[in-house]
C-alpha cells in the first residue's frame, strides 16, 4: 500500500495553491467514469475494480481538499516527515495561548454558554485561517534540495502542530454547541 500521488491522480499541479473549482470539476469527471453505480450489472471483477478506483480517487480528493493533508502530502512526496503530534512543540507562547483557549472552551461548554462558545469558535477559525496561509507559504517555499532540517520544512512542521491544536479545540467547541 504505497503512498500515491493525489495530484497526479486528479491531474493537478503539485503545489499547495489550489483552484478548488478545478478540483471539483476533475473529481466529477472522473467519478462519472469510475463510480461503481455505473458497474452494478457488470461482472464482479469489474465491479470491484471500480470500487477500488473510485475509493482511490475519493481518497486523493479528500487529501487535496484539506489544506493540512495537502501540505502533508507535499512533504511526503519530497520524502520529508510530517509533524508527529507532540514531539515538535512550537513556541511556548503559542502553547500558553492554546491551553488558555482550551480552558475557556471547557468552561463555556460546562456552563452551556452559547454566545461565549460561538465567540471562541470565531476566534479559533480566524487563527486557523492565518495558520493555514502560513503553512501554505512554508510548503511552497520548499526547494528541491531542502532536507528535513531546512528552515522551510521546520516551519511547515511547526504550523502543522499548531493547526492540530487549534482543530482539536475547535472540535471541542463544536461538540459543545450540540444540545444533548
Amino acid at each position: 500500500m504505497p503512498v500515491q500521488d493525489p495530484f497526479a491522480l486528479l491531474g493537478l499541479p503539485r503545489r499547495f495553491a489550489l483552484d478548488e473549482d478545478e478540483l471539483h470539476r476533475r473529481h466529477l469527471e472522473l467519478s462519472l467514469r469510475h463510480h461503481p453505480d455505473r458497474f452494478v450489472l457488470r461482472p464482479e471483477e469489474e465491479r470491484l475494480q471500480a470500487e477500488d478506483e473510485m475509493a482511490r480517487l475519493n481518497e486523493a480528493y479528500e487529501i487535496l481538499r484539506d489544506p493540512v493533508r495537502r501540505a502533508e502530502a507535499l512533504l511526503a512526496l519530497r520524502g520529508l516527515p510530517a509533524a508527529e503530534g507532540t514531539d515538535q512543540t512550537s513556541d511556548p507562547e503559542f502553547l500558553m495561548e492554546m491551553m488558555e483557549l482550551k480552558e475557556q472552551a471547557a468552561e463555556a461548554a460546562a456552563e452551556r454558554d452559547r454566545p461565549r462558545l460561538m465567540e471562541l469558535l470565531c476566534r479559533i477559525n480566524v487563527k486557523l485561517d492565518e495558520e493555514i496561509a502560513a503553512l501554505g507559504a512554508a510548503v511552497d517555499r520548499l526547494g528541491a534540495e531542502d532536507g528535513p532540517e531546512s528552515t522551510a520544512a521546520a516551519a511547515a512542521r511547526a504550523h502543522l502542530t499548531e493547526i492540530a491544536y487549534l482543530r482539536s479545540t475547535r472540535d471541542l467547541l463544536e461538540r459543545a454547541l450540540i444540545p444533548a
Partner: protein
Amino acid sequence: MSDSLSLPTLPVAGQQPAGPVLGIDLGTTNTLVAVWQDGAPRVLSDPSGEALIPSIASFPADAPPVAGRNALDRARLDPERTIHSAKRLLGKGLADLEQERRLLPFRLVEAEGRERVEIDLGDGRRVSPVEVSAQVLAEARRLAAGALGCDPAELERAVITVPAYFDDAQRQATREAARLAGLEVLRILNEPTAAALAYGLDRRGAGRVLVYDLGGGTFDASLLQLDEGVYRVLATAGDTYLGGDDFDRALSDLVADDLERRIGRRPQELDPAARTALRFAAERCKKELSAAEEADFVFHDPAAGLAFRATIGRDRFEAAIRPLVERTIERCRQVLRDAGVEPADLDQVVLVGGSTRVPLVRRQVEEAFGRPPADAIDPDRVVALGAAAQAGVLAGQSDGMLLLDVTPLSLGIETMGGAVSKLILRNTPVPARAVEGFTTFVDGQTAVKLHIVQGEREMAADCRSLGEMILRGIPPMPAGLPKIAVEFTIDADGLLRVRAREERSGAAAEIELRPKHGLTDSEVENMLKSAWDHAQEDMDRRRSADLHTQLQTVIRSVEKNADVVRRELAEAARSRLEEALEDAREAGPEDPPDRLKGLLDELEEAAYPLAEALMNRVAAEAVAKRRLDEVLDNGKGV
C-alpha cells in the same frame, strides 16, 4: 398463490435476473415500495389502494408470522409477540438501548455470545430485529408482486434506504434483513439522498439543497449540491434516536398525571395491551393537532374497562416537543458548518418524513433558514420515489444521473491510552479508502490487536465499537520497528472493510473485519432454511380469527354491563350501542377481515359512553367510600 410456500430464493451469481429492481423505504413506522416505470418512479399499492405497509411483524404462537397491515391488527391483541419500531433496534446491543427498553411493550434480551438485542416473545421463542425487518421486507415484496401482477420470485433485487446517520452495524443488519427476505441489495441508499433525488428529477437545475428528514424514529439532515444530474452530498448529520415516536411519547407524558389521577396508573405501569392502545391514542392526537388548535387525547381500552379523555392544546404540545425540534435544527447548523455553507447560500430546503407535518417543525425550519420549506412531494412517499429512481439507474433503465454520497461518521482505531486515531473522517465521499501506519509497543511483539471504532469522540470508549482484529505472525523485532499498514475501505453502501499488513517482514498477514453485531454466513443460511412465506388466504384467515376474538372480548364486556347501559346511557348512545352489538353478534370468524375490522371499530366507538359511565361509577364509589371512612373515623374520635 402456488409460489407462496417456497423458500425465498437468492439470485445465483452470473445469472441475470429479469424482474424490475424494487426501491424500498424501510421506515420505523411504515414501509413503502416503488419501481421505476416508463421513465418515472411509481409507488406501489395494495388492491385497496393503500401504499403504506406498517413496519410491524407479529409472531403468533401457533401460526406463521404475519407482517404489515395484518400484523397491525394484532398489536393490541398480542402485544408481546407483535413487534413495531424494529428499525430502532437494528444492529444494537442491549446496552445501547437503556432508554428505549422501558418504553417498548415487548421484552428485549441480549442475544447469546453477541452484543445484539433480541425480542423475547414470552413463549420460549426469540426473534431478532433483523427477522422482524425481513418479514416487513417480504411483505413489501409480496405487495409489489401483487401490484405488478408478477410472481414474487421474479422480484429479487432492491435498493433499500436507511437513515444517512446509520452506522456500520445498522447498515449490515439492514442488508441481512433483505437477504433473509430473499432480496439482493444492489445499493443501500441514504434516505435524505433519495429524497433529494426525487426532488431533482423534474428540476435539472443546479443548486444547494438542505434535506430535513424527520421520520418515525430517526432524524437526518443532509446538504447536497445538484449539478446537471449529479447529486453530490456535501455533508450529513443526524440522530438515530429522534423521531415522531418521541413526539408521541412527549404527548403521553403530558397526560401522565391526569391519567394517574383518573385511572390510578402511570403510562409505564399499564399492561402491554393498554400501553399499545395509549401509543395509538397519542399518535392519533398528534395527527389531529397538526390540523387543529386543540385535539382530544382519547385512550380507550374496552377489554380492560379503561376510558380516558383529555383535551390538549397545540401550544402545550409544542412546548413539550420544542427541545426535540431544537435538537434537529442544531444538527442542520452542524451540517452547514461542516460544508462551510451559510444559510443564505441555500437554494432550497426540503421536508421529508411524516413528522414534518407537525406545524412547529415547519415554523422552526422556516425561521432557521429564512425561507419556506419545499413540500411539493408527499413527505411519506418521497424517499421511496428516490429509491426507485436510483433502482432505475442501477438497472440501466435511466441514465445521466449520478449520486456521490458520503460516510456520516468517522472511523478509526484505538491507540495506546484509549485515544482514537481517525482514518476516515465523517463526510468523506464513498467509496472511501485510507491507509495509516502503526507500529509495535514492546520488543519482540509478534501480534497486535486492532480495535475498530466509529464516532466523533476522542476516546475509543465513547465511540461505537465495531469489532477487533488481531494481526499475527509479525517477526520479532525491536519495538517501533515493524511497519504495520492498516487500510480502511468503505464501499458504496457505506460498509467497512479493514485490512492490516506488516510491510517490513514481507510475510504479510491480511485480515478482514467481521463486525461483532453481524450474523455469520451459516446463521443466515439456517435462518433462510427455516423461512416462511405463505399464502394470502392463510393470512386473511388468521387475521379474521384474531379480529373475531377481539370482537368477542368487547361484546362480552358490553353484555356484562347491560344494566348500566339501560340505566345510565342516553337514548341515542344506547340505541347506537345496541345496534352495533347486534351486528357484531352476527359476525363469524370466517367473515372477511375488512368487515370484521369495520364492526370492531364501530362497536368500540359506540361503547365509549359506556366505558365513561363505568369510570365515573368507579370514581363515585371511591368518593362515597372515603366519605364513609371519614364519618367512621370521626365517630371513633368522639
